[in-house]
């Protein structure tokens, strides 16, 4: 004790003042006046609805990205005490005072601000000087588009933050003297998992990091570290990715607007919605059961096997004839006409025996339409819209020597045993027409007006192996008890209820949700501000984010044109330099020492590679794309520019004093002009002060930019 006191009480700290300075500036530019404008800005209208659903724990599907991004936004909302009661219906709608706008926007803004010091540190890890690091940080700091994108409830800044963090921590790990501590590596793995969890685009940066890491590790193959690397960079991100879904699925346990896209089993696991209807249904389908049959196809909309008291027209528009029997369709809404009764062909009764006799795989049944008592029938008559398949009808005997062919064999495609019982919700069933061995199928075509635009149901002979259009599931189910038609109709109108609980495992839900997210097709439509990837490089377009409801104050996503130009120049310069170096090295002329060459290559791998993986995939995508998709790629270029300048300064122009001085002066001039353009575009970045129409006209540097003026 005494000894300790004898020592002087010393705190030794080295503080990188530059780092502190840029961080403070970053926080100031990103966080000041965060709750202005107090209105819904651009894509907040999109993410906001999901935040609301999160607050209400209502299940939803968003195909734009994995759930971590939504969770981060929702946690900001949670901190601010947002209760989810706000309708995100249009851009520009004012937030009520109950919504804490500041907290909604806080987390993305924090992430955006932290990108600036991260870029500083990352440049140091790439083994460039503090001056380069400062340059990169300033480029990022004064980039108007990044500021705009950070200040609202949007996900790009979060993605960029995690990607930069992953690279920084990996390089920190790599540069440490051996044996390195695995903490940086773990951090890198976690950030990778988070980046992929925020947006799918993170995947490409993650793959790049894996490539860089495997190149590094290749030299050490057989070393112990390799197992660390695999564990931290492969296993951890994958586990984390699944974990986000675990949280997502266990947190969102109420039924909501997207229920119908999911399978019946999935819906039954959510509170409310289908589970309220189906709770307590008997599990095993028996002879005499009353059921609704849902098609396993949920594209474009889910639907149920349906019939109604209208017949097929005798002749179609194109002159072909029909059987003129009762229409059978697939109907996308709950309706009493969706009920069918399972009948044993050998017996007359339509009620369930005690004990119930379950229907098994391979059994032959008849299906009776509950309200009209017509039998489900198919025959060798061409279907109305798909003439290569058979018509399916509710059988009416017109006495025209067209006998009833109403026997159907039950084929449970996901059975585990041969004699498996047909189960509600769980079994996927094909109904095979006994006479023609055609299979009941949803063709996916809408009928014309005579069929009320409902979906066509056919029987198809040439069946494909795994087509979900052939599968049907029993969704609502109860044991029929009334023999008389009138009683039965009343029974069908009454809701079902009995009590059983059904659960499907997390993995099944995860796989289903993930599959749906990747395959949900959105209608391709062009947005007023969408753009093509090649326009991003030259910043041909901008995006109007917000316009004040009465004045000219407005916010635009416009980058800093000077920085944008610098970024493009450095990309070109690096490639040229790399080609020249490579060709000369091949001829044995080493312009730079090996250590510097390695540093140069590493810079290229991270920065040019990062730009490529974040840009090229967009060229191949069919999606609606916006300028903000380019921002992650842009960040890599900002990392590249100062480093390349330093490389030129220290190695290329070492002995040429005149150009060296010119270079320094030029760099300073560019920095100054970057700052000036930043100031110029500030009104469009922060939405204040309001500019006159004339001033706005002056800011329209390119003809293709859309800047809005109010006519007064």
């Amino acid at each position, binding site marked *: 004790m005494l000894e300790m006191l004898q020592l002087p009480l010393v705190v030794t700290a080295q503080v990188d003042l530059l780092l502190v300075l840029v961080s403070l500036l970053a926080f100031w530019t990103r966080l000041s006046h965060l709750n202005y404008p107090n209105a819904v800005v651009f894509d907040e209208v999109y993410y906001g609805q999901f935040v609301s659903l999160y607050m209400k724990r209502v299940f939803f599907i968003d195909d734009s990205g994995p759930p971590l991004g939504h969770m981060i936004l929702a946690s900001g909302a949670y901190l601010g005490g947002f209760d989810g009661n706000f309708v995100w219906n249009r851009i520009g709608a004012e937030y009520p005072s109950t919504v804490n706008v500041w907290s909604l926007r806080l987390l993305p803004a924090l992430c955006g601000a932290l990108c600036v010091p991260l870029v500083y540190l990352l440049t140091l890890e790439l083994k460039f000087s503090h001056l380069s690091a400062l340059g990169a940080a300033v480029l990022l700091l004064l980039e108007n588009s990044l500021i705009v994108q950070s200040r609202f409830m949007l996900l790009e800044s979060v993605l960029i933050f995690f990607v930069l963090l992953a690279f920084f921590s990996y390089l920190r790990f790599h540069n440490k003297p051996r044996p390195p501590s695995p903490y940086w590596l773990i951090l890198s793995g976690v950030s990778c998992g988070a980046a992929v969890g925020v947006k799918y685009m993170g995947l490409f940066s993650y793959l790049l990091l894996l490539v860089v890491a495997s190149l590094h590790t*290749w030299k050490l*193959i*057989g070393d112990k570290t390799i197992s660390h690397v695999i564990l931290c960079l492969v296993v951890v991100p994958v586990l984390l990715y699944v974990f986000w879904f675990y949280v997502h699925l266990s947190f969102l346990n109420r039924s909501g607007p997207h229920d119908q896209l999911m399978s019946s089993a999935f819906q039954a696991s959510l509170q409310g919605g289908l589970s309220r209807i189906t709770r307590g249904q008997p599990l095993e389908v028996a002879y005499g059961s009353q059921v609704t049959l849902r098609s396993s196809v949920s594209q474009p909309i889910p639907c149920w096997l349906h019939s109604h008291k209208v017949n097929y027209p005798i002749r179609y528009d194109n002159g072909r004839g029909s059987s003129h029997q009762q229409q059978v369709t697939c109907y996308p809404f709950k309706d009493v006409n969706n009920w069918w009764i399972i009948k044993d062909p050998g017996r007359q009764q339509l009620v369930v025996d005690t004990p119930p006799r379950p229907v098994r795989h391979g059994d032959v049944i008849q299906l009776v339409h509950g309200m009209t008592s017509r039998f489900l029938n198919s025959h060798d008559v061409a279907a109305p819209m798909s003439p290569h398949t058979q018509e399916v009808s509710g059988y009416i005997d017109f006495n025209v020597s067209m006998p009833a062919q109403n026997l159907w064999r039950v084929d449970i495609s996901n059975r585990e045993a041969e004699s498996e019982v047909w189960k509600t919700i769980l079994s996927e069933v094909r109904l095979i027409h006994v006479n023609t061995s055609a299979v009941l199928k949803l*063709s*996916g*075509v809408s009928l014309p007006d005579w069929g009320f635009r409902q979906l066509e149901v056919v029987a198809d002979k*040439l*069946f*494909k*192996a*795994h*087509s979900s259009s052939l599968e049907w599931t029993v969704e609502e189910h109860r044991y029929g008890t009334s023999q008389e038609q009138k009683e039965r109709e009343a029974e069908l109108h009454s809701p079902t209820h009995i009590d059983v609980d059904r659960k499907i495992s997390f993995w099944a839900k995860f796989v289903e949700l993930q599959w749906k997210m990747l395959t949900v097709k959105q209608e391709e*439509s*062009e*947005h*007023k501000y969408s753009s093509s990837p090649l326009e991003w490089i030259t910043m041909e377009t901008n995006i109007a984010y917000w316009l004040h409801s009465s004045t000219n104050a407005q916010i635009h996503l416009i980058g800093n044109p000077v920085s944008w130009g610098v970024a493009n120049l450095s990309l070109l310069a690096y490639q040229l330099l790399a080609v020249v170096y490579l*060709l000369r090295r*091949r*001829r*044995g002329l080493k312009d730079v020492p090996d250590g510097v060459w390695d540093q140069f290559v590493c810079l290229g791998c991270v920065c040019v590679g990062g730009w490529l993986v974040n840009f090229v995939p967009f060229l*191949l995508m*069919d999606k609606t794309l916006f300028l903000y998709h380019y921002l992650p790629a842009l960040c890599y270029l900002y990392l590249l520019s100062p480093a390349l300048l330093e490389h030129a300064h220290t190695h290329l122009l070492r002995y040429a004093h005149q150009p060296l001085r010119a270079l320094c002066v030029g760099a300073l001039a560019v920095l100054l002009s970057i700052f000036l353009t930043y100031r110029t575009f500030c009104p469009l970045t922060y939405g204040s002060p309001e500019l006159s129409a004339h001033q706005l006209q002056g800011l329209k540097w390119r*003809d*293709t930019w859309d800047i809005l003026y109010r006519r007064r």
Partner: protein
Amino acid sequence: MAKAECTPKWNTLALRNRKTCPTPEKSFQTTFTPVSKDKNSQTAGHLAGGDTQSSNGPSGQFLARESIESPSKVLLMLVAGLSFSTRLYMITEPPHVCWDETHFGKMGSYYINRTFFFDVHPPLGKMLIGLAGYMSGYDGTFPFIKPGDKYENQNYWGMRGFCATLGSFLPIFAYLIVLELSNSCTAAIIAATLLIFDTGCITISQYILLDPILMFFIMAAVLSMVKFNQQRYRSFSASWWLWLVLTGINLAGALGVKFVGLFVIILVGLNTIWDLWRLLGDMSLSLVDIAKHFLARAFALILLPVILYVTIFAVHFVVLNKSGPGDGFFSSAFQSRLIGNNLHNASMPEYLAFGSTVTIKNLRIAGGYLHSHWHLYPEGVGARQQQVTAYLHKDYNNLWVVHRQQDNNSQSGNPDLVRHGDIVRLEHKETTRNLHSHLHEAPLTKKHFQVTGYGINGTGDANDLWQVEVCGGRKGDPVKVLRSKVRFLHRATGCVLYSSGKTLPKWGWEQIEVTCSPYLKETPSSQWNIEDHINPKLPNISLSVLKPNFLEILLESHIVMFRGNSGLKPKDNEMNSKPWHWPINYQGLRFSGVNATEYRVYLLGNPVVWWINLASLGLYLTMVAVASIATQRGFSLGQQRIGGGLLMLGWLLHYAPFFTMGRILYFHHYFPAMLFSSMLTGLTLDILFRSADLLLHPPYSYWFQRAGQLLLLFSILYSFYLFHPLSYGMTGPLAHEPGSAMADLKWMDSWEF
């Protein structure tokens, strides 16, 4: 079999080699006898494999060379014989039009009739088909209307036989390529056997299709490239030049048949870059030498193919000089070249006048005619008024009547000319609606305004008025038919009539969207010309339109082809083939016949062959991974690399790009990749068998090797026997019905034969 003769000696070499090799790992130990057919075997042997050299003595080399020379000739003859006999067998069956014969046969006929048509592929393939038909006495009169039409007395066998002959060269080329890459007869014969007995390759070669022609050029290009690589130490010798030039010619051929030929160009390009890179690192060569090498390749692999490719198009345009079904896809100037087109030596009133009936063509290439029809825009797409689109075909719905702002009745006397700055109302002749625009979003291009047909019989509103502007003209200039570029400015909103080039969905009959663009920049999309011009009150004057020069035609036809290609989108509700289906032979294509009574041909690979190929791809990657990890960990394999990398790259280049394609895809797109995959299988399995001596002692390893080869041969032959009805035709009940001959062969539910 003949191949028995060459393998034992190889094997003894292998064994000798093995003893010097300390590796405990199972890896891809190739035995290599660096032999080549060159007489100076020492140097050539060096190169045969690349980087490292084996430790074989000279005696081994000579021994092996003698052993390889004679049997390879015998084997080659055998391969050729089998290949031709399998492809040409029953070539005339079925005697009706099968599948895409309806397109390519028809196009062959167009060449014979010299009628102009439009297709999304370059012309060489169809030209050759036409030529083959012409030589074999086909007169071009058969209409090829739809699959299933009977040929009757037409000489169709010539065209089929031509395709089958080219298809028969594929196994031969595969044999030679693999032999060149691996110096192993066994590998080569495996590759050739796989292709000879693949039902898919047989089927696709037997009909009038572009694929056999395309694959012929692809394989010929690869063969010449491989041969050229072997010449690398005899630079600028006659054979060096020969193979180099042959490579270039075949590249031009491949690209001239289908744009898929681009992939083999990339393959050759990468190989050439790699080659140049190697030369650059060779310090014994001066920069001048390297420049020579570079220039020689630039000439033979870039300049020569380009010249040939352009020549193909030149022939195409010279031969096809009559008007035909493809006219509407092209600009007015282009059409004036074609005999029989109404613009050929056209005669019409020279200046546009009020009261004239006109067609208005967009100046963007493949821009289409301004068109309207009775259908309305559907609900939710702007205002529910009549659709206005751009349409590529000539049609009476393309006719518009030019009216003054107000009056609708025809004037007496000479009509007034329309001049720059005049306000007009364009009335659709068929429906009497006015061309109209308003502040609603356009259906696809949301930044633009919707254009509709509005009003009836001359009544309308102020939104029907358009101001005519001649590009580069001044106020008062008349509008010249065909030659003036005209823009139509909407009076009320100030936007300009625009064709966006996007295809409307089904409700718009997949025609092209027409919008009114608020961006007034002059682009071809917003410029139009008056094409047909009917006004009985004006004198007709013969117009010789400025004929376009050849380069303009070439560029235009390419843009039209690319547009056409990207326009082939998969339709909804249509089961379309996905790239991942292909290597697993998931689903074939029905070439002919659906019902039990018809003669059915089903394009499907021999499943045994295809699944062996699939497994070999995995095996190859595993072997490479094991070997490179072993090398990295310091085990010296002392072995040279095999040419598998090149084939793997070829497979990837011909397969991977399909995953990114938005257009509609078919099973037969995989066949070029399948050729590479089969060749790779030959190499891989050969090495696998020979690696047996890593695990087994000499006599057993030899037996194992033998047994493996025999088993492979037997399974391929037997599966071919089982599945041959797929190619040569089958009748009787469908396979999933009882009583069918093919009943037990429906191994996958997705096969539909």
